[in-house]
């Protein structure tokens, strides 16, 4: 009886002594949708990290034989015999009468799927050279070559959409994230200066925020990206787009931070810190920002999906990431007209990834918001 009570007391004490973060973590664990979203995001980001290994082909590898082809079907039975998962090579037959092309499978020979095959070279995490890929197509049963596995089909040049989605996620998933972090620092710094000092600085900053907020995002975005010089390297382009995104997104964060500062800066603990000679910078980052950190994390998480959609739209219009650099938006350029979609519906597959990523960030943000709410 005694020990039981003590244990209860201890768990109670744990509860009361737990930091804000521990409590949030506990509540978040209970939020099923948020947990699922976290898992999905983890998979997506791991996928981006090991994209070279997971993708059977490289970004630019193309095969004229496979132009605009639908996802390769995977078979297990060859001529009534079980041989394990395999694919047939694609074959083009030109009808001499009317020059129409029919695409069919060459069923004379089967190509077994294999794990850990050698393919195009890459560097693991950008460091260790390697040419192993998770899966691929082996030699044909009669020693033939040239069969491909295109899980999501191919684009007009005959490039594997599956590989391109994976490799493109490196840009599509990291640009919004990087820009969220940059706009976080910009927003907190500028917002805190505005809220902490007040006066003329505050008025000027407020006007600037209002103006940037007033200009419709995408037109502003388009105008800014028009300034990206053509023919620059992928890394530079990445850098420019990130900067443009952060430039547009920091204002929301700054507004929130300013509001919080106005209400917190007259609290006694801030006064106490100031009286004991703590520097302004330290007061802001050590005493004030932690007080509403959870709130900021929520706004970051909920801001990312907007950036993902935004980057996709921009790249789709040819104003964001431009070929040869590849993001999901670039992949979607293939689906730019009704006829494209009607004849090659598989070209819409990248949109599933955009949607999943956006939904996952939204649900995660909602979950964190619920968890951070002390009244729930």
């Amino acid at each position, binding site marked *: 009886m005694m020990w039981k009570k003590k244990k209860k007391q201890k768990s109670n004490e744990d509860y009361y002594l737990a930091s804000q973060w521990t409590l949030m973590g506990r509540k978040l664990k209970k939020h099923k949708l948020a947990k699922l979203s976290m898992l999905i995001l983890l998979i997506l980001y791991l996928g981006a990290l090991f994209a070279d290994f997971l993708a059977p082909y490289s970004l630019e590898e193309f095969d004229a034989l496979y132009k605009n082809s639908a996802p390769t079907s995977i078979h297990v039975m060859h001529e009534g015999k079980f041989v394990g998962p395999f694919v047939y090579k694609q074959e083009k037959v030109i009808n001499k009468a009317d020059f129409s092309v029919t695409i069919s499978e060459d069923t004379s020979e089967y190509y077994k799927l294999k794990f850990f095959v050698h393919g195009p070279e890459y560097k693991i995490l950008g460091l260790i050279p390697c040419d192993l890929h998770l899966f691929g197509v082996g030699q044909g049963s009669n020693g033939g070559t040239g069969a491909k596995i295109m899980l999501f089909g191919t684009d007009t040049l005959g490039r594997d959409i599956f590989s391109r989605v994976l490799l493109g996620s490196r840009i599509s998933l990291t640009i919004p994230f990087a820009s969220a972090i940059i706009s976080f620092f910009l927003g907190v710094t500028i917002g805190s200066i505005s809220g902490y000092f007040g006066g003329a600085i505050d008025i000027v900053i407020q006007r600037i925020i209002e*103006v940037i907020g007033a*200009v*419709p995002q995408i*037109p502003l975005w388009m105008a800014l990206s*028009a300034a990206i010089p053509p023919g620059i390297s992928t890394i530079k382009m990445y850098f420019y787009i990130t900067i443009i995104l952060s430039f547009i997104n920091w204002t929301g964060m700054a507004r929130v931070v300013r509001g919080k500062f106005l209400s917190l800066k007259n609290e006694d603990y801030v006064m106490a810190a100031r009286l004991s000679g703590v520097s302004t910078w330290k007061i802001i980052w050590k005493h004030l920002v932690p007080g509403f950190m959870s709130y900021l994390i929520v706004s970051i998480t909920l801001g990312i999906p907007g950036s993902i959609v935004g980057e996709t*739209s921009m790249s789709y219009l040819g104003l964001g990431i431009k070929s040869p650099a590849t993001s999901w938006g670039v992949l979607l350029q293939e689906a730019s007209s*009704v006829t494209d979609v*009607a004849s090659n519906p598989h070209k819409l597959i990248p949109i599933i990834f955009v949607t999943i990523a956006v*939904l996952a960030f939204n649900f995660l943000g909602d979950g964190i918001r619920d968890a951070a709410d002390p009244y729930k």
Partner: protein
Amino acid sequence: MEENASKSKSMHEDLPKKTLWESVCDFFKKDLVQYIVKRLLMFIPTLLLISILVFFVIQLPPGDYVSAHIAALATEGEIVDADYAAQLRADYGLDLPIHEQYIKWIKDIIWTPTDSTYYRLYGSHHNWKYSFAYGKDVWDVVDDRLGLTILVTAIIMIFQYAVSLPIAVYASTHQYSVGDYISSVIGFLGAAIPNFILAIVLMYLSYKWTGNANVGLFSQEMLQNGVHLYNFGEFLKRMIIPIIVIGTSGTCGIIRSVRAQMLDEVGRQYTLTARAKGVPERTIVMKYCFRAAINPTVSGLGGVLSSLFSGSTVTAMVLNMQIQGPVLLKALQAQDMYLAGAIVMVQAVLVVVGILLSDIALAFLDPRIRYSGGGR
């Protein structure tokens, strides 16, 4: 008895006899006029800052306007001599220092004197410069589609509020019901799927079901004869896809925020007071909660307008709508920067006017704002 406020002493002395008109006058004389004047004064620096931002955008692309112009002429096979280029540079003030360029640009827009070449040529006092991509005066290009852009935006906006407010009220009064879940799932999806893809898919479906993809706002017949009463129905029919595509994402946002706001208000103490008075539930929801919940919605009107311009820009290109979005894209691709700048500026000014109007509407709706003198 205690703190009889002195500020409105003269206001209500003869109150019982006052007519409605008189009280309206009183109302205006006092705080509201002050408030509106204050907001109008704040409008001027905002405009100024917008113009600076736009000028900055115009300056961004590598090379100057005249070299882009000459390059454009060269592709058409015209040979431009150096004298003409120098003449153009002088006309546009491109050899001046940057701040003087800005002043010249803004001065020309506000008032071009009667004795200038521009006035003699175009008969207008507002010189927005020349668009080489269209071979016309910039303002003519902007004006061409301004009316339609505003009309389309207004129709979509009305649709958004007409759909989202009832759904939000329903969702908040039936929290965690099936309807609530459905509306939030659709809401999330609507925000997650990029506009342009939704547009293409809808066009495809429309093509499949009706045999007509409904591309563009006008039929061939309308383009010849203009829009009249008899073919206005056709115009509205062609608006369906744009309304769904551009409207949905915003609708979801409004539903989410109004629902949250309503839930907040439903939990307020005054609903309890009203209930204890014997007020019917319906009246509590509509008279008290909804009335309080729409205030933030009204103040968010400017933001909604801004996102509508953003959304319609991308969608218009896919749907080939005759509004400003595609013009902006064309201008940016051709680096016709004065035109691009003018469009961004016009849209930003429209948004700022929207914010101004919503602030004034808010002052009408929320008594607290009138008295505290506003400020957000």
